[in-house]
């Protein structure tokens, strides 16, 4: 029996914004099953660490490209292309504010990933002063955060790059309050990840400065056992660090290739390099459509798949007037339905042909 040919992959962006309490993806890598499904449907999924990182849990899939948020925004805008690699040479950047025992825990995770997973992890650099991470909440309730010493972060990143690192895992000491109501709500499955905003700032700063793949894991003391722990938060309580998923994700993260007038000729668009004009769909929570990658793609005419995935926000495509501005918006009540839309787009089907009524042309 002859098999039907498989349609070419449809490069698809999956965005689950960090720190807004998404019901699916707002916890410890709990959007990973959805990412695997969308990767199977599209054949090529570009997504960010918040989707893929489950602390000690991770999944490696050659169809999924692990791209930090700043780089993902620049990719969507056409400023960067993505070049798949066989492996990255990782560097580890440690915050000087990490206590010795916790630092040793992280170094042992690195050794474990070298010995057991065969990852190439080389230089370790410690910042020349504590980074001073602070956590905030914006007026919307979304988690944001900042650093007192961004200069120390960037200097350490430069040192790692000089030492030959092609991708950087950052571990910063985060403030902690084990008794806080916000943490209890998060562990109970009803809160916002209060660390996520500051984590994004750290990895964005470093990616922007060095233009290499970067991702972050917070250093925290282990928490007391919680018998009421929500399954979506459980991955973060399996071990003593959040680092394994970051190392695995970065180990095959695509290179970031500059495009545009100042880029070397032939840098993008050849030899399996992914470029923005290849993006065939964007999948994002229906009430969180106000991020840069989503809006950029909307304005480039890329179909937006708006998935029901409640969060703190209420920023829908309709509220932003995206369809009136010319965007194609496909509503999905679940990630399973989103996978159906992607399959339809990959097969070249008109989305309108799959709904009723189908009105006659006039």
């Amino acid at each position, binding site marked *: 029996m002859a098999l039907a040919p498989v349609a070419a992959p449809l490069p698809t962006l999956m965005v689950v*914004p960090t720190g*807004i309490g998404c019901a699916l993806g707002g916890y410890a890598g709990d959007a990973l099953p959805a990412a695997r499904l969308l990767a199977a449907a599209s054949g090529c999924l570009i997504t960010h660490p918040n989707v893929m990182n489950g602390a000690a849990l991770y999944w490696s899939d050659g169809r999924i490209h692990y791209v930090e*948020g*700043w780089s993902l925004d620049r990719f969507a805008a056409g400023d960067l292309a993505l070049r798949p690699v066989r492996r990255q040479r990782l560097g580890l950047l440690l915050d000087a504010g990490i206590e010795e025992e916790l630092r040793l825990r992280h170094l042992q995770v690195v050794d474990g990933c070298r010995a057991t997973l065969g990852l190439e992890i*080389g*230089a*370790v*650099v*410690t*910042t*020349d002063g504590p980074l001073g991470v602070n956590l*905030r909440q*914006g*007026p*919307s309730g*979304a988690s*944001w955060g*900042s*650093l007192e010493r*961004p*200069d120390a*972060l*960037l*200097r*350490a*990143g*430069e*040192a*790692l790059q000089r*030492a030959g690192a092609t991708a950087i895992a950052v571990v910063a000491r985060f403030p902690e309050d084990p008794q806080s109501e916000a943490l209890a709500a998060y562990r109970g499955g009803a809160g916002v990840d209060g660390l996520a905003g500051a984590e*994004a*700032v750290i990895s*964005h*700063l470093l990616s*922007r*400065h060095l233009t290499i793949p970067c991702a972050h894991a917070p250093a925290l003391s282990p928490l007391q056992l919680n018998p009421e722990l929500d399954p979506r938060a459980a991955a973060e309580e399996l071990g003593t660090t959040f680092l394994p998923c970051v190392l695995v994700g970065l180990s095959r993260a695509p290179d970031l290739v500059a495009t545009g007038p100042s880029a070397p000729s032939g840098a993008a668009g050849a030899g399996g390099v992914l470029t923005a004009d290849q993006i065939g769909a964007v999948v994002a929570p229906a009430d*969180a459509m*106000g*991020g*840069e990658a989503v*809006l*950029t793609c*909307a*304005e480039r005419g890329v179909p937006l798949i708006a998935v029901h995935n409640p969060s703190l*926000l*209420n*920023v*829908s495509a309709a*509220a*932003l*007037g*995206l369809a*009136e*501005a010319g965007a194609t918006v496909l509503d999905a009540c679940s990630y399973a339905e989103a996978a159906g839309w992607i399959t339809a787009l990959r097969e070249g089907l008109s989305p309108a042909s799959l709904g009723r009524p189908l009105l006659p042309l006039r």
Partner: protein
Amino acid sequence: MSTALGLESLARLERLELLELRLRRRSGPLLPQIRAALAGRGQPLRWAITGVEPDPAGAQLRIEAVMIRPPA
């Protein structure tokens, strides 16, 4: 495996500021409107529209951002 850091580094940036601003949505593409609103306040590192209030004169958007600013 550790590398000692010198003091000669190139990184001499920057301070980070959290910013909240309001923007009235006008017709047409939204990104240029946001970029114009953020311009002059530093370089945006991370931003998102985090609220929309309907208004007959054009929806009011709330934007939250982390901006990179030169040293004070």
